[in-house]
């Protein structure tokens, strides 16, 4: 099949799935946070607020697109574009599963199988700071300026330990391509411990690298406890104080997109990508079906005791859909294509959940403490860790 056509179709598909996922990560965040905080979260638009993201998008698009008079127009308008662009590009090199074959077409589950995918992601996410810094400067607002400055310093500082942490599994697995990285994490140690990167090599060092990576990732994506650039209690809204309507939504999208990218990278580099957590002989291929059957059972149970009148009709429908998905995973032909995608998304969602959980629990660092943490604690540990792993690789 025509390479160009295939790529266009894949790009459209990935963009569609990514943008939908973005909206629903935001829904998930609001729901989980709400339940941590004794609230119920969005509930009005659609069953359990499932159409809330759609309503938000409509609202943000139809809002008046106002440009304050005191801003530097060129950079003010450029900044959100840059932020979204550099947030969306990295997803192109991320593989979501193994190769698939549909009829005559055989294709990878990523847009581009770069042999230097990891470096590409590091490079592009490093550019992301331009959007934030420019918006802070171009807004001509003191709060925005402080937010932009904080953000630039923070993102640049945390890129170093992050790069060090990423280099560790690369040393052990000896490749820069995501696909090969995941392939070399296949199989099981002693028949039951998955050969994920964190369980490979000299024992604690790769787990340390994973933790450093996650901490740096929280800082890179400006999330609590590192959300200083937009610390609303200090800097109103930080760098996007002067932005409204879709321009604000662009920054919002960029933040969640970066979150998804970082979770994907963590899954691919450290958590074995699309490989299951225990061998297929022990029944790991039934897990997705079991989860969806469980979800269907919960739906039917709640439909029997509806808390709202509509639940009596909506929940059984959701339950039947879940049962259908469970059935799909039992079809052998489809299962081989879908299982990797399932395990990959499951791991990404678990990490996303941790992100939200942390947001509901921790207070925020102070700016100088954050920088000191990066330079005097995280960075030295990352270097020592990398050095020790390098030594181990050289010796074996």
């Amino acid at each position, binding site marked *: 099949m025509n390479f160009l056509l295939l790529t266009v179709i894949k790009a459209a598909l990935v963009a569609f799935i990514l943008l939908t996922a973005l909206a629903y990560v935001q829904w998930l965040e609001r729901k989980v946070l709400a339940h*941590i*905080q*004794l*609230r119920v979260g969005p509930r009005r638009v659609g069953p359990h607020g499932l159409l809330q993201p759609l309503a938000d998008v409509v609202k943000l698009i139809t809002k008046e697109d106002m440009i304050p008079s005191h801003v530097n127009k060129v950079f003010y308008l450029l900044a959100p574009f840059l932020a979204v662009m550099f947030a969306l590009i990295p997803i192109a090199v991320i593989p979501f599963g193994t190769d698939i074959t549909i009829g005559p077409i055989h294709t990878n589950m990523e847009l581009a199988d770069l042999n230097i995918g990891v470096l590409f992601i590091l490079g592009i996410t490093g550019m992301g700071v331009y959007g934030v810094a420019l918006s802070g400067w171009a807004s001509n607002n*003191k*709060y925005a300026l*402080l937010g932009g400055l904080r953000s630039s310093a923070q993102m640049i500082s945390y890129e170093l330990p992050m790069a060090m942490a990423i280099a560790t599994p690369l040393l052990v697995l000896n490749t820069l391509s995501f696909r090969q990285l995941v392939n070399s994490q296949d199989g099981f140690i002693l028949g039951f411990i998955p050969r994920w990167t964190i369980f490979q090599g000299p024992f604690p060092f790769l787990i340390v690298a994973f933790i450093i990576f996650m901490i740096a990732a929280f800082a890179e994506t400006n999330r*609590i*406890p590192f*959300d*200083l650039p937009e*610390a*609303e*209690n*200090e*800097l*109103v809204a930080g760098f996007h104080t002067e932005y409204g309507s879709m321009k604000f939504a662009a920054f919002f999208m960029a933040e969640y997109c970066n979150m998804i990218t970082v979770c994907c990278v963590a899954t691919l580099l450290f958590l074995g990508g699309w490989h299951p957590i225990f061998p297929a002989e022990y029944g790991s291929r039934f897990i997705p079906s079991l989860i969806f059957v469980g979800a269907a059972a919960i739906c039917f149970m709640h439909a029997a005791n509806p808390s709202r009148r509509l639940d009596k009709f909506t929940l059984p429908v959701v339950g039947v859909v879940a049962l259908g998905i469970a059935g799909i995973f039992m079809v052998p032909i489809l299962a081989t294509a879908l299982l990797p995608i399932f395990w990959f998304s499951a791991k990404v969602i678990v990490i996303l959940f941790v992100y939200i959980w942390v*947001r*509901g*629990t*921790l*207070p*925020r*660092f*102070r*700016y*100088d*403490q954050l920088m000191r943490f990066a330079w005097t604690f995280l960075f030295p540990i990352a270097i020592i860790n990398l050095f020790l792993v390098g030594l181990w690789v050289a010796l074996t």
Partner: protein
Amino acid sequence: MKYQPFEDPVATIQALQEAPASPSSPRRMTLNMGPQHPSTHGVLRIVIELEGETITEATPDIGFLHTGIEKQCEFTNWHQTTTLTDRVDYLSNIGNNLVYALTVEKLLQIEIPERAQWLRVLMAEIDRLNSHLVWLGTHALDIGAMSMFFYCFREREDILRLKEMFSGQRMMTSYIRVGGVALDAPRGWEKAVGGFIRQFPSKVDEYENLLDNNPIWKIRTQGVGHISIEDMLDLGVTGPMLRGAGIALDVRKTEPYSCYQKFDFTVPTRTENDVYARYRVRMEEMRQSARIITQAMEGMPGGPYVADAPHVVLPDREKMKTQMESLIYHFKIVTEGPRVPAGEVYQAVESPRGEIAYYIVSDGTSKPYRLHMRTPSFGNLQALPVMLRNTLIADSIAALGSMDFVLGDTDR
């Protein structure tokens, strides 16, 4: 003196709204924080001069919430004024009711029955819990722990229900009146208060568990917001801020009112004199308040809940309809209000924020001649410029939260 209008009101307002003098050095930046800013807790404007992220000068600009309550009090009779004192401090209205009632009773020299005094203590302590819970929630929210806010408001909801049960109102209760309290304790109040107070200490433990075991919370609060004891005493700072510096000044102990001397409680103090110390002091105060509430609940005496002073206290409804004398008193109190002997008095009580005191001048008529409120928020806010000098913006937020001021209380 003849009233002189501004020559050009628009220009005057514009001059007032402009950011004050440009920064004293080109390396510095003037930042106008407020009046609408997420963490100034109301409409406080602080003009800060920054060098990088360090504050070199902070000037609070108060008065955005000035409602003229002190002046209004001169036009309402002694009973109606109670409802105005509610509006001074929306988090501690019972404390304001109490200090007003005590001040007027000092002038009237009437004896308040035991039960009314115990009910006053009970409600004042419930109110202290309410105020401290709101403080803890917003303070933690400022530092970034946003779930805390919702946990505190869960308990606050229980407290508001109790207040509604006692007085029929959730916030502006006007429960404590001159001569006693508005209503006797409702049926089943022991069960409601007991149910709440039994599980409350465990909730305080839960909050401490979330915050105290968290290294980020500690590095954000320890050693932050220091101000010398001499400065605090000079500026009139009272309450938990002073107790966090090691001075056990609590009006409930030093000049007991409303039979506080009959209750067994301690005044928690810390010596660190920082945001963390103030946090610990307030957490401990919540436990002590819970102790007082338990004692008040268990030892509540019987008897009347209003003083035997027919010229001040509204008569019983039944008596008013059957007895001529009561009807006349009722008519006099409702139409012109009770008359209070001429004189000047000063009375202080311990509000959740510090020492609140009313100074009342009466000229013997049925309205106050002058009512001055010495509010703790105003005194505590004076420490702000000293406290914020040479701190970081982020620390200023923590320090502001630890002062626990209410702008309605500051501006009156």
